[in-house]
């Protein structure tokens, strides 16, 4: 990457962030709701991206962790406790459960692991639905308050969107740091070649559990934002289809790419909304679009970009080589 390229990237980043802050100021409540939903789903998908994209563990339980976070927030805030307390509890709870759920991952891999996590997902749904005393069962919990952040009420859609965006920014920074830390490199090593990682002295057991636990905790963070966003939760949105949706976001965006979940969540949340003008066909068109994308690029949207950049680099390198070769030949 040249210096020039680096500046371009920073400029692009600033432009996108500025746009995310400024453009929605004129949005109606619906647009803000969808964007807030995007921010929340991105956080959950980032968690899954860590588990799946970086550490290579297939999980179909991310939706359940969003549910656990959402129920924690709903139960605690309707009892008058602040959302920040709920956030703490949700993170600890999801981290602990994610850690325990990670144990099967030490023994089974790939689709076997997917089935274990699928079972967990169903289990969580049944708990949400059947344990009336805690979750109010199928009736759901309504009247979930929105928090006050640093003295600002977030009842209106715009402040709440900024709250979601701010949370996304914090999570993104933490993630950026994490994947550049030795931990992040250990996660990648785990995905690429666990045996070699082990022989290099990486405690694969601990890192596998850690990948699951951190990914799950981020699901919990997304959940604690989801509850005050909709202000009503029932068990239905947290069934297996949410886990599949999140999995799709990660894969469509580009699994293992930092910005993959951002794009993936955009496709999953915004594309169906854009396609709504086609009335009864929108879900079909959406499905077809996703299939076509994955046929064209199994590594997701960022995979296309990555391929393009790699090609350009190869071309540039071969051009340099050719020049060097011709110089060598013409040299006396």
């Amino acid at each position, binding site marked *: 990457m040249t210096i020039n390229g680096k500046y371009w990237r920073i400029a692009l980043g600033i432009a996108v962030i500025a746009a995310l802050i400024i453009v929605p100021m004129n949005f109606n409540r619906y647009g803000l709701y969808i964007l807030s939903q995007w921010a929340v789903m991105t956080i959950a998908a980032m968690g899954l991206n860590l588990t799946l994209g970086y550490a290579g563990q297939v999980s179909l339980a991310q939706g359940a962790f969003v549910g656990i976070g959402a129920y924690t927030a709903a139960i605690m805030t309707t009892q008058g406790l602040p959302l920040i307390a709920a956030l703490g509890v949700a993170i600890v709870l999801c981290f602990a459960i994610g850690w325990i759920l990670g144990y099967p991952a030490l023994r089974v891999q790939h689709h076997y692991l997917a089935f274990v996590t699928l079972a967990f997902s169903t289990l969580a749904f049944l708990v949400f639905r059947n344990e009336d005393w805690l979750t109010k*069962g199928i*009736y759901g919990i309504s009247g979930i308050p929105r928090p006050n952040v640093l003295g600002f009420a977030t009842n209106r859609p715009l402040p709440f969107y900024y709250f979601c965006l701010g949370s996304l920014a914090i999570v993104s920074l933490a993630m950026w740091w994490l994947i550049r830390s030795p931990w992040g490199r250990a996660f990648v090593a785990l995905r690429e070649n666990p045996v070699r990682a082990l022989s290099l002295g990486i405690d694969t057991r601990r890192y596998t559990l850690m990948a699951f636990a951190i990914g799950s905790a981020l699901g919990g963070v997304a959940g604690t934002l989801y509850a005050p966003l*909709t202000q*009503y939760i029932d068990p239905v949105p947290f069934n297996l289809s949410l886990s599949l949706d999140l999995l799709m976001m990660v894969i469509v965006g580009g699994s293992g790419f930092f910005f993959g979940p951002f794009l993936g969540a955009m496709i999953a949340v915004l594309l169906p909304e854009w396609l709504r003008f086609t009335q009864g066909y*929108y*879900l079909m068109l959406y499905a077809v679009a996703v299939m076509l994308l994955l046929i064209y690029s199994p590594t997701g949207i960022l995979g296309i970009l990555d391929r393009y950049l790699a090609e350009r680099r190869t071309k540039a390198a071969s051009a340099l080589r050719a020049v060097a070769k011709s110089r060598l030949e013409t040299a006396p």
Partner: protein
Amino acid sequence: MRSGFFAGLLLATVSATAAFAQGAPIKLADVAELSGGGATVGNNWKNGIDLAIEEINAKGGVLGRKLEVTHADSQSNPGVARAQVQKALDNEPYVLLGPGYSGSVKVTSPLAAEAGIAQIMGGEAAELTQGGNKFLFRTSFGQQSSMPKVAKYINDELKAKSVAVVWVNNDFGKGGRDVITKEFAKYNIKVAADLSTEAGQADFAADVSKIKAAAPDAVFIYLNEEESARILKELKRQAVTVPLMGETTLVGQKVVELAGDAANGARGHVGLTTDAPVDLVKAFREKFVKKYNYVPDHNGLKGYLAIYMIKATTDKMGKVDPKAFADTLHGLTIKAANEPGILMDVTFDEKGDIDRQGFLVEIVEGKQVVKQVLPKLN
């Protein structure tokens, strides 16, 4: 160039005036379960709405203005329903229609109330109209008004002392089960078995065995239509002979078609049914079948009635005023003699609950037979 500019300006002014003129269409917004678990509910509701609007527009509309509706899909998910209702409200509709699932109603009704727009919905959970929301209206009986009638019938007519309750574990089924269990307690009727089943469940052998083991005097069945048919077949197969009692979903036309002989003898309280012995309802059913090629369930009727509620209320006000709509509809009695589209006389109370005649029906040789007409209360 200059004349072009003025022409454009003129055109803009003309179209702007036209938009505010009396002749502009009245905008309605519908958010319903068009896909997902509630697709049958939502599509019946939508078709009922479209049919009513087509009829009204063919006759010149409401106060000389056409009705226009947009349909949005909630995917049977409360989170999506909230987004779609928000979108609908941002466009300032005259009245909001839907959703049909009680959970989706719960998440959206505060938004409509905040916007001051009346919401006519299909949810039947008892609690919906008990939170003091001044903008929410039902199109059918809430469970708090239908279940007492069922419990009374089980006590007075069937003289049952113990009842097995089979319900589907979603907000519809659980709501009904909770209300009827409370009613049973009033009559000292014992719940012999309390069986929760899944939506879409295919096999009821185990549940029916449990019913047999409990040996109740009657069985109360509160499931969706397909599952009702399946359990009726299984009850017949395992030779359960005690009376079977239910609600609209146990004795519908679809259940009879699916269950065949096994449906005979099933009884139920029905608030809205296309089999009602009312000429206007029969005529509605014919029109619906002609347009869509299938017999609607009660959700089709609900959607149809929602539109005629709007028409009657607007005619009564004599103007299109979204702010005064809810106030006018509270306490309003709409008579079928004046507004045939409402099908049966109906009164709305201060909570938005409905008062209308109901029916106790029994399936006899594959036909719904009305055993008792439960009159309108006031």
